[in-house]
């Protein structure tokens, strides 16, 4: 049965609209979140409240609505919701929560529509509701025949929803959810190049802005000579952006076309002051080491791990388009949080939120970077000045050098080893930086909560020392878990190797017999043929993680001499896998991130600035390095779990352990200096 708060209302000429409050949202009274709509012709439209940056939330919404309304996925038209937190609650795509937060309200909304349509049909036929079923866009009765939804919309909209019991389609009757055949709903537009990403959303007549950005961290413009720049054909204006109100700061060149703006930027003569022109990431690493406590809480086997800076580098570089008018604004932006952007732009312009329309464009990847708003502030500042739409476009180098990076960290792990070679006590001392994009993430307890998911039965303590961040830091896939679990699993592998223990057996011993983790570990060991010795010249690594309400175990097989990962096996327990192809895709994506960062992609800082500028030096994995990935989704009766970030930490740990063979892993990337 469905909560009484389920809201139904007729909209316009007898259309049926169903809205359910998102449970996470504490709003006064009842704010209609309109998720599902049937018009007079019976056409079904579903609203997707959260943006899709490749994680597949649009597909899952379409599957849920089609399932509950007993139609095919192709019968559901999707509308991407604009930014409007008052209406939709949190629209943030973060912490692998999108599907978890949306599944109940969206399924309930669609199920409510179905139950109302069925009730309307039963009333018309004067038969009990229990004799009627919904199938293929119509309500059927064994003797009365069928009534298509379009013939029932008006009658259903007139019913009082409080009088109609609502039931969800039970899992064992699903036709679409949980089935392997379903692909991404946007597959056709993607395969024909017709998706409009943020970068493709500049309205006709809009300008392009490219920003001269600080040449070293924290620099601000001192003198600006833009006389040559303004003389270039196509250049419309040159605007100084002041951090933090206008984003990260710099000097924007506005021109009629992208190439004019890019070329004109090079003609600016700017002197800069302030900041840290001598900053060097090797010195930062030394500072983190120096901040380790003088003594570890225990003595025993000890290993220190170094973790590098990482950039998000989404395939679509940062961009935002704004059209600021005296009485309102429209923003087009690939974002992980359109609702937050609406609030922020309204504040920046001193307008009511309702005057700001935020179109959540498709994102060419996000990975945590698009939870931020700096690029939007830049676009708003530019358009506010010139009064026409302005798209701020970041070049790849801008994107890589002015990111919010995953923090560096140093981890000192100590273990007391028992008679049998197993660890009996552990200590994990972490020194790292906060996340500057969200100030509460300077709290060591919060960093620990994000990073510490050690699942094994070894008592001990984790301590976090926080040093000031010398550059912008932010949320990167898996956040601190990526560093913590990497160090812990690699250390456990070293403990096992020293004692001559089998890595899977070691972990099994330390996991409760009936745990989800032990179940996925057994499954993956089976899939990987763990009981047979590895082929000559190959080595294997294993790692586990339980986080986001899900559990995963990963086994990587590598050829260490060739520095090549051959295969990665993963077994996941995500509770209910609503879209199995999407579940596999997220694991495959995490494996690629793991491979890239273990093999060499890292950000370094020299002479005050990020040294890397593109995919030539931020060496992201390519197809020829990419292993086959075998993902097993284990049956589970656990509640729906999160997934988008789950596989990165254990995949990185397993891959590094396999590649290192008999050499202990001491950081990321392997075989290269960190920093």
């Amino acid at each position, binding site marked *: 049965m469905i909560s009484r708060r389920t809201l139904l209302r007729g909209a316009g000429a007898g259309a049926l609209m169903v809205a359910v409050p998102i449970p996470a949202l504490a709003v006064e009274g009842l704010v209609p979140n309109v998720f599902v709509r049937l018009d007079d012709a019976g056409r079904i439209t579903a609203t997707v409240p959260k943006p899709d940056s490749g994680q597949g939330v649009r597909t899952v919404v379409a599957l849920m609505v089609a399932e509950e309304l007993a139609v095919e996925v192709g019968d559901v038209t999707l509308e991407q919701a604009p930014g409007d937190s008052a209406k939709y609650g949190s629209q943030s795509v973060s912490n692998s929560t999108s599907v978890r937060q949306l599944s109940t309200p969206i399924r309930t909304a669609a199920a409510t529509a179905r139950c109302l349509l069925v009730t309307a049909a039963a009333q018309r036929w004067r038969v009990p509701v229990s004799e009627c079923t919904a199938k293929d866009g119509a309500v059927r009765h064994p003797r009365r025949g069928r009534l298509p939804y379009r013939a029932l919309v008006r009658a259903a909209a007139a019913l009082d929803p409080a009088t109609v019991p609502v039931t969800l389609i039970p899992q064992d009757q699903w036709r679409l959810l949980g089935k392997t055949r379903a692909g*991404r709903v946007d597959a056709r537009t993607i395969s024909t190049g017709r998706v409009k990403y943020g970068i493709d959303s500049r309205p006709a007549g809009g300008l392009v802005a490219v920003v001269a950005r600080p040449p070293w961290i924290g620099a601000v413009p001192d003198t600006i000579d833009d006389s040559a720049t303004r003389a270039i054909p196509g250049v419309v204006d040159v605007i100084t952006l002041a951090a933090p109100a206008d984003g990260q700061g710099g000097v924007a060149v506005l021109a009629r076309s992208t190439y004019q703006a890019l070329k004109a930027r090079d003609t600016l003569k700017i002197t800069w002051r302030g900041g840290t022109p001598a900053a060097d990431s090797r010195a930062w690493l030394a500072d983190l080491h120096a901040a380790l406590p003088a003594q570890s809480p225990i003595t025993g086997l000890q290993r220190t791990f170094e973790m590098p800076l990482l950039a998000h580098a989404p395939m*679509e570089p940062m961009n935002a388009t704004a059209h600021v008018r005296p009485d309102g604004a429209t923003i087009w932006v690939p974002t992980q949080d359109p609702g937050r952007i609406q609030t922020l732009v309204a504040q920046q312009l001193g307008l009511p939120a309702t005057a700001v329309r935020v179109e959540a464009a498709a994102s060419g*990847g996000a990975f945590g970077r698009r939870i931020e708003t700096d690029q939007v502030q830049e676009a708003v500042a530019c358009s506010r000045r010139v009064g026409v739409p302005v798209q701020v476009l970041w070049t790849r180098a801008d994107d890589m050098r002015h990111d919010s990076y995953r923090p560096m960290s140093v981890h000192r792990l100590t273990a007391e080893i028992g008679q049998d070679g197993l660890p009996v006590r552990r200590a994990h001392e972490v020194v790292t930086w906060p996340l500057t994009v969200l100030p509460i993430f300077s709290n060591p307890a919060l960093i620990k909560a994000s990073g510490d998911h050690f699942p094994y039965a070894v008592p001990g303590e984790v301590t976090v020392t926080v040093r000031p961040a010398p550059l912008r830091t932010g949320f990167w896939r898996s956040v601190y878990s990526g560093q913590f679990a990497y160090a812990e699993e690699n250390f456990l592998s070293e403990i096992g190797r020293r004692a001559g223990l089998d890595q899977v057996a070691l972990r099994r011993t330390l996991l409760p017999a009936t745990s989800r983790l032990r179940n996925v570990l057994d499954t993956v060991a089976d899939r990987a043929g763990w009981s047979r010795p590895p082929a000559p010249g190959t080595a294997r690594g294993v790692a586990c993680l339980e986080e986001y309400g899900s559990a995963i175990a990963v086994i990587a097989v590598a050829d260490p001499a060739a520095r090549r990962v051959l295969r990665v096996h993963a077994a996941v327990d995500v509770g209910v896998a609503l879209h199995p192809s999407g579940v596999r895709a997220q694991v495959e994506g995490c494996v690629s991130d793991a491979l890239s960062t273990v093999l060499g992609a890292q950000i370094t800082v020299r002479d005050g600035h990020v040294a890397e500028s593109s995919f030539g030096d931020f060496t992201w994995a390519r197809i020829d390095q990419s292993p086959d990935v075998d993902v097993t989704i284990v049956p589970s009766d656990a509640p729906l779990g999160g997934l988008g970030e789950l596989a990165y930490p254990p995949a990185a740990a397993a891959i590094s352990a396999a590649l290192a063979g008999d050499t202990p892993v001491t950081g990321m990337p392997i075989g290269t200096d960190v920093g």
Partner: protein
Amino acid sequence: MARYLLRVNGERHEVDVEADTPLLWVLRDELGLTGVKYGCGVGLCGACTSHVDGQAARPCVRTAADSARARITTIEGLSRDGDHPVQRAWRELDVAQCGYCQPGQMMAAAALLARDPDPDDEAISEALRDNVCRCGTYPRIRAAVRRAARIMREER
């Protein structure tokens, strides 16, 4: 500024741009062919991959002037109905995540299959090595290229 006659997706277009303007920005800004993606602008990521005279090429590192007499095909012109075997295979195997790199990946794959109807893993790696997928769809791309090759052979 100068005028150039470009042959793109079977149509002739006259554009008025500076001679050194990269073909990428001509296609995107002047002709509205936004399926040609900007990923790096310096030939390092493959997001813009299109065909020039049937070969995979990078519009971000060629100028409009260089391209004047060439036959250019972008993802929008790969097939009339979106049903090139590569596009079908990509959908069948649910390759895309964010999708941003995929026009470039598909154009590189189509150029490969036009000259090698039965590429092995080595040949696929060779042809697609310079196309970055930040989302990590490589295993599916590899499978989809093989699938597209099979579709093409079956339909020949």
